[in-house]
């Protein structure tokens, strides 16, 4: 087995820095497009206003999530669960079609690493200069380049932390530098996390920490498109001018790889499917006048991608299920009644006999107006002959307010059965009959 020259190594190894070379080409442009789209959305969204408040605000302290016209309460947590299911299912679908494209193009870890790499290039120069700088001893030149890099990283990190916290505490309050102790902590925490993850950890996050990176490979099948080196065409590797395969072993694909792997060894768990090696190889092939596509997106079985292969039954079923969930989610949100009601019967007294033998039960209505407008609601009751509220049957509830309103119901003597009777309590907004909820309750008539 292993008998060649041996050396002693340890089970924990220091990380070797990866300095990816800059690329140009189709997939590089696509990656930058993803950077711009995701980052404009991320940094700009908290500044949008809606109805005189922040359009997207997750107010954890008040337990209310504002999403444009929508206000979600803790009772609406099911929507978050469905949203996560949709995200997970989209990941499954995209991964089945084209492997880890999420990792390579849209994952925050990738996107911030790209931004930080760009800053690194501005301060320390291209790959060769950075490799040289690493080996260099401490000089003034190295100090200001490194210092400048870390300063710019830290600023981007802080801005990111600030923006992230701005989703939970109104960003216009934060921008007045009104930081509470917890806001300060979280801004620094997320700022540091961005700086550490995108500046220092980079591909190690994908390798050692990320669970999705590992379980995505279980979604692959033989038709899944992955970044592939065409070995048949490429091998044997020979320098330019000699007879052999198309690969001239220029190692450009290795130099550009942010994961530090050699794609020519085949599919590896480190590969994030970012496709910059395709751009690098295509560039080289263009220069030496050979056809592009030595490294390309191809199915795992080596076959060229066609629409027929992409639209295989598995993908169609995944898509159908995904659209079904999205449609159900949209319908549920659209048909949601922004009014909630709980009916709590007073437990202290069973039923109270009042004048002329009439029976009264007392309830407490927990009314949650989840709209941002004040509403007046009419209370109606049904289920028993002569059942009617004695207390005020119209209640006013302010915007996004919870109101506990006592409700006293009366039944004239001789109606209903002794013991418990099922009744319903309903609320209807005076200004909008569609704002209507109904709850079941029990009316108790004393046995003697």
């Amino acid at each position, binding site marked *: 087995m*292993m008998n060649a020259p041996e050396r002693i*190594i*340890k*089970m*924990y*190894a220091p990380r070797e820095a990866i300095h990816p070379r800059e690329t140009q080409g189709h997939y590089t442009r696509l990656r930058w497009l993803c950077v711009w789209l995701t980052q404009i959305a991320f940094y700009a969204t908290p500044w949008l206003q809606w109805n005189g408040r922040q359009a997207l605000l997750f107010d954890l302290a008040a337990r209310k999530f504002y999403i444009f016209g929508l206000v979600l309460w803790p009772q609406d947590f099911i929507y978050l669960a469905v949203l996560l299911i949709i995200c997970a299912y989209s990941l499954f679908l995209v991964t089945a079609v084209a492997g880890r494209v999420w990792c390579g193009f849209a994952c925050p870890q990738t996107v911030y690493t790209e931004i930080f790499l760009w800053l690194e290039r501005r301060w320390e120069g291209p790959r060769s200069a950075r490799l040289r700088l690493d080996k260099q001893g401490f000089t003034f030149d190295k100090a200001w380049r490194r210092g400048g890099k870390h300063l710019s990283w830290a600023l981007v990190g802080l801005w990111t932390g600030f923006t992230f916290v701005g989703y939970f505490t109104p960003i216009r309050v934060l921008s007045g530098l009104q930081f509470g102790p917890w806001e300060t902590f979280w801004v620094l925490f997320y700022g540091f996390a961005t700086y550490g993850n995108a500046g220092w950890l980079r591909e190690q996050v994908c390798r050692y920490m990320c669970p999705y990176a590992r379980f995505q490979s279980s979604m692959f099948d033989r038709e899944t498109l992955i970044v592939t080196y065409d070995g048949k065409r490429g091998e044997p590797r020979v320098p330019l001018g000699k007879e052999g395969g198309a690969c001239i072993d220029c190692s450009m694909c290795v130099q550009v790889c942010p994961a530090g792997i050699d794609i020519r060894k085949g599919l590896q768990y480190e590969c994030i499917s970012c496709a910059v090696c395709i751009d690098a190889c295509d560039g080289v092939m263009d220069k030496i006048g050979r056809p592009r596509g030595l490294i390309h997106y191809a199915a795992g079985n080596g076959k060229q991608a066609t629409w027929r292969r992409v639209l295989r039954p598995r993908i169609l079923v995944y898509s159908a299920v995904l659209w079904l969930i999205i449609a159900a989610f949209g319908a549920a949100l659209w048909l949601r009644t922004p009014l909630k009601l709980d009916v709590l019967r007073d437990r*202290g007294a069973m039923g109270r006999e009042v004048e002329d033998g009439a029976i009264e039960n007392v309830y407490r209505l927990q009314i949650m107006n989840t709209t941002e407008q004040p509403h007046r609601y009419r209370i109606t009751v049904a289920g028993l002959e002569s059942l009617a509220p004695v207390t005020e049957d119209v209640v006013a509830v*302010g915007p996004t307010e919870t109101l506990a309103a*006592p409700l*006293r119901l009366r039944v004239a003597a001789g109606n209903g059965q002794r013991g418990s009777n099922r009744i319903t309590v309903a609320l209807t907004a005076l200004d909008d009959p569609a704002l209507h909820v109904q709850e079941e309750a029990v009316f108790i008539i004393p046995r003697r």
Partner: protein
Amino acid sequence: MSDFTSEFWNLYIVVLTVLGVIGCAVLLYSQSMHKIKAGKDNPIGTTGHVWDEDLTELNTPMPRWWMWLFYITIVFGLAYLFLYPGLGTYAGKLGWKSSGQYQAELDQATKNYGPLFDGYLKQDIAAVAADPQAHAMGERLFLTYCSQCHGSDARGSKGFPNLADKDWLYGGAPEVIKATILHGRNGVMPPMGAALGSDKDVENVAHYVASLSGGSADPIKAVFGKGKFAACMACHTAAGTGNQALGAPNLADKVWLHGGGLESIKETISRGRNSTMPAFADFLGEGKVHVLAAYVWSLSNAPAVKPTQANHAAVAVTHDERPGTNH
């Protein structure tokens, strides 16, 4: 109970925890110093494990900073066990306690909401009752602390007085209501069966009492009962109209705390009644009681604000600022 007092379990936890931490440290150290051979065709080597004769496990080295994280975790664990309670019954150097944290949060809440209640405390109760925000606060306080006995609508039930009518056991003046909530009340009706004589006497008195408010009573029995009623006059007065200074109920109206039927009245006379309104002074503090008293008073004194308007105005008091809720 011996589970908690025996020294054995303390030692058991301490030994297990300390051995666990030491075990982790030893394992980590041995693994970080462990050396393996790597061959030329296998630059990363194997862990040395071999299964089924030739199945080996490749060594995929973890980054070294990861190892340092493990060491930091151990140091953190030791520091935590030194500073905080965790090691058996050892209380920790910082003396942290959950009850202490609770008290600190309570003090903070008092500091936050205290001024609000102090402001109301400076106004008289009738003025507080007219304040829509105070009314909404009072209602929430009532629903939290009072509704268990008096009902969400404050109309009481058998044995628990109706607070929404004009009939008061101890008086309905604002200051009296406040005193009732602050210091509580103890309503004692002694068993009068023996003092009155026979069961027949009790029945006669019951008929007389029922007749005072025009209830269905046997006029003959009531006449006999009237003579015996002398025993009741000390508290309920000669006319049976009661005495608010003593908390003795008015027997000449239609309001009955323990039931107005003849059977209930007989039971009250022969066995007595004992009702307790607990004192809230220490529990709630005077500020909250003041706001509560205003709310209760407003229930029977044509409040200057209608409840629906009060609800509306209470919008300014958001969910988390509710002074009366227990978090």
